[in-house]
């Protein structure tokens, strides 16, 4: 199935609901009634959305996407190429929606990982118009056309947009990503205490969804395959900073991340922080760990 150019068979219908209809004017009662206040707020909201609608002039149009294709097994796809698809645009359409449309309507062999559609499973990080993004969390209206969708750089391509994640998983596993506290409060119903501040401190780091966007964006990780990479270091941070684990365990964790290919490799490029779909301040976490490691070493001098 070589489908280099695909046009939708019929012109998509324009969505009549797209054009915002102002709400019927209601009889205004007392100026201060809560209902009126609500209506007022609602109208403000509508106005805001109308503005948003102006920005998406795409409505009723087709979106041109260029998708990277490669399959080691299929002759026509052994030589990597880009296929063009023209997908009818609907409001709120994401890159993932466009890919699904292209696959279901035009070319069933178009292959990519996806599952949750809500930025929580981390399977659909792609290289979209030159940066690492989650397909399901990227609105087409924000992108300039044609939208180029490629597999994540610096990872081996398995097929089309699917890359080999093994190396990423290995790095994640290498920081002993599990709670190690053995000394627990007595009784199966007794919980460990943790201050709110401490939970707040680790909160952002616990949000990682293992999408590998950060790793793919980091030039150091690209050059040095053994570099733990921002996600794994962040995972280590999540535990090292959790006060529920004892000091010795923290020291053990610091020893892991200050290896040759650990935190010192980071050159503060910030691209990891920029692409992280969960807004985790990765560079900050890495830097903090560097300082912790230095402090720990100074103690022994």
């Amino acid at each position: 199935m070589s489908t280099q150019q695909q046009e939708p068979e019929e012109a998509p219908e324009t969505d009549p609901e797209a054009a915002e209809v102002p709400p019927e004017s209601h009889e205004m009662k007392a100026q201060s009634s809560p209902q009126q206040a609500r209506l007022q707020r609602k109208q403000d909201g509508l106005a805001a959305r109308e503005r948003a609608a102006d920005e998406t002039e795409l409505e009723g149009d087709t979106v041109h996407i260029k998708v990277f294709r490669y399959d080691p097994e299929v002759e026509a796809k052994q030589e990597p190429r880009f296929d063009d698809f023209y997908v009818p645009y609907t409001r709120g359409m994401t890159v993932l929606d466009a890919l699904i449309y292209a696959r279901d309507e035009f070319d069933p062999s178009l292959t990519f990982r996806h599952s949750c559609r809500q930025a929580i499973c981390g399977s659909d990080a792609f290289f979209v118009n030159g940066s690492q993004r989650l397909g399901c969390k990227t609105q087409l209206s924000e992108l300039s056309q044609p939208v180029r969708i490629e597999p994540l750089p610096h990872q081996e391509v398995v097929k089309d947009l699917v890359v080999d994640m093994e190396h990423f998983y290995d790095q994640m596993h290498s920081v002993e990503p599990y709670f190690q506290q053995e000394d627990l409060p007595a009784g199966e119903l007794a919980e460990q205490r943790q201050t709110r501040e401490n939970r707040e401190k680790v909160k952002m780091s616990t949000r990682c969804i293992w999408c590998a966007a950060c790793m793919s964006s980091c030039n150091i990780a690209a050059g040095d395959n053994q570099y733990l990479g921002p996600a794994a270091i962040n995972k280590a941070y999540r535990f090292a900073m959790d006060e529920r684990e004892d000091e010795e365990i923290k020291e053990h964790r610091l020893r892991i991340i200050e290896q040759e290919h650990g935190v010192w490799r980071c050159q503060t490029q910030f691209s990891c922080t920029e692409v992280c779909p969960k807004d985790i301040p990765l560079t900050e976490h890495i830097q903090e760990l560097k300082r912790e490691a230095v402090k720990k070493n100074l103690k022994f001098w």
Partner: protein
Amino acid sequence: MSQSYNRGLIEDFGRWKEFSAGMWAWIFHKFTGWILIGYLFTHIAVLSSAIAAADGQTIVVGGETVNAYTGTLQGLESLFIVRVMEVGLLAVAVFHILNGCRLLMVDLGIGLEAQDKSFYASLVLTGIIVVASVPTFMQGVGL
């Protein structure tokens, strides 16, 4: 790199197009650092003419016989191209210093949210300092 599937230029073009502040800062810092260390070697080599000078050797510069050290330096300084390169060196050094300070701040965890702004600030400041120094650097150069 070894294990990534080679997508040739496709991959690289995309990356360069969307290069972000932190990445450019990194590249520039690298570049300027290398120039500086390269210059340090050259610099010591040039200054080594002091050894000859101490021996009382002289050279002829523009018809005059002068001390080897003074002569070497002034001879170089009289060349337009050397002056231009010096300005370049200044630019490189100033950027490296400013961005180096930025990196030191980042290492201390200060102003991480403003990392892109501080990079642009480094660039602008470098520009201003360099432009402002041009008269001094170019003073008395024979064309």
